[in-house]
């Protein structure tokens, strides 16, 4: 448990001291969402129908932006090798890193998304579902994204590759996330898409660390 806390504290302080990274993701999220009313239509009714989709797509793209740095700095300065060689299970270490990634990108995105949804004139009844679906969905993006980040580690053009590999796999999150909000605004039962999201979250917490750890071991060996 001490190790877990130590890794989380280390990664958090690294992100905090670099400062700009998490902030840039948030700004990117806001800017992309801002483009839609300008590009599609400023009509409040049209935006109301599109709001949940715009916010979710924006969140996905913004999260993609931050992924290539997840293991890159550790890989460059050699601390990744020490983490792999350490006696602690690499799966747990990786899970901690994903958690920190979520704290510094998923959580800010989740906090700012109701404000953006409000600007897109989303129905008031949908807020709770927007936040719940974000709370369940953004950790999955961090976990799946970490799979991509571990796979492309050390390749050329790693940033673009991650997006190419991971975006197809994140489609279920988008479907269920938007589905929950749509169901809520149209007066249907929103609990089943949320349950699917929860199942996906549990599934990825259980499986993604193994995939990430095994590809990190391949990198170091």
């Amino acid at each position, binding site marked *: 448990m001490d190790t877990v806390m130590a890794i989380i504290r280390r990664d958090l302080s690294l992100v905090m001291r670099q400062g700009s990274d998490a902030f840039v993701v948030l700004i990117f999220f806001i800017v992309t969402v801002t483009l839609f009313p300008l590009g599609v239509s400023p009509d409040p009714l049209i935006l109301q129908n599109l709001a949940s989709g715009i916010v979710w797509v924006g969140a996905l793209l913004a999260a993609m932006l931050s992924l290539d740095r997840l293991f890159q700095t550790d890989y460059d300065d050699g601390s990744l090798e020490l983490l792999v060689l350490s006696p602690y299970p690499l799966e747990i270490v990786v899970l901690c890193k994903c958690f920190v990634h979520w704290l510094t990108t998923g959580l800010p995105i989740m906090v700012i998304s109701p404000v953006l949804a409000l600007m897109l004139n989303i129905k008031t009844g949908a807020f709770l579902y927007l936040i719940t679906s974000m709370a369940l969905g953004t950790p999955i993006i961090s976990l799946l994204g970490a799979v991509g980040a571990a*796979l492309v580690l050390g390749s050329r053009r790693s940033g673009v590759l991650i997006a*190419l*590999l991971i975006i197809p*796999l994140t489609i279920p999150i988008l479907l269920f996330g938007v589905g929950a909000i749509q169901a809520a605004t149209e007066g249907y039962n929103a609990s089943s898409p949320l349950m699917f999201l929860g199942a996906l979250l549990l599934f990825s917490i259980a499986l993604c660390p193994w995939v990430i750890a095994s590809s990190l071991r*391949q990198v170091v060996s």
Partner: protein
Amino acid sequence: MHRFANPARFMRIAEPILPWTSVGALAAILLALYFGIFDSPADYQQGETVRIMYVHVPAAWMALFAYTLMALASGSFLIWKHPLADLSAQAAAPIGAGFTAIALVTGALWGQPMWGTWWVWDARLTSVLILFFLYLGYMALVNGFDDPERGSRMGAILALVGFINVPIIKFSVDWWNTLHQPASISRLDAPAIDTSMLIPLLLMAIGFKLFFISILILRIKIQLLKKRIRSIQLTH
């Protein structure tokens, strides 16, 4: 299986097979085209456009088959480190991507007269499109490293992760209410299709499979020869 993991032994067996599969593929595809175009009835609802099925359905089967083979080969590459498994996974990817593209394009051409639209975002079509992206992502990842060895290992992991999409494609027509029709051939009871239409369909499927095997052997052979050239160049 381990016995055939030796590249030299594999080539000794594959080399004599190659002409037979190539000629067989050509014959089966030509026969299927003849039966499909001249010797099978038009559908009572769909008219002549039903003949697109003879290309579309076998191509879609091959798209799934190639990915499954790729995932199996990737798995055995990661477990046993067979160099041949890695080569066959990498050789299968572009062929699979090609069949996926054929399935998507013929599907669009068939959808336009039948459904009145080139494309709908239903579960079957979307999941096949994702399969296409997975093929492309796999190829980009494998070629994205300066060290080809690492590219194959990372690609193998990705191929296994992406395999989750294959059962989703297979059962998408049963799980969701889609515009795409459910399976008519691979059912527990008799296929829901007339024999006159089944003949060209199965012939084309056999032809595509033989074609796949021929190209796969060719591509593996090329890669093996390339490796050999590289090692010769290194020693001289």
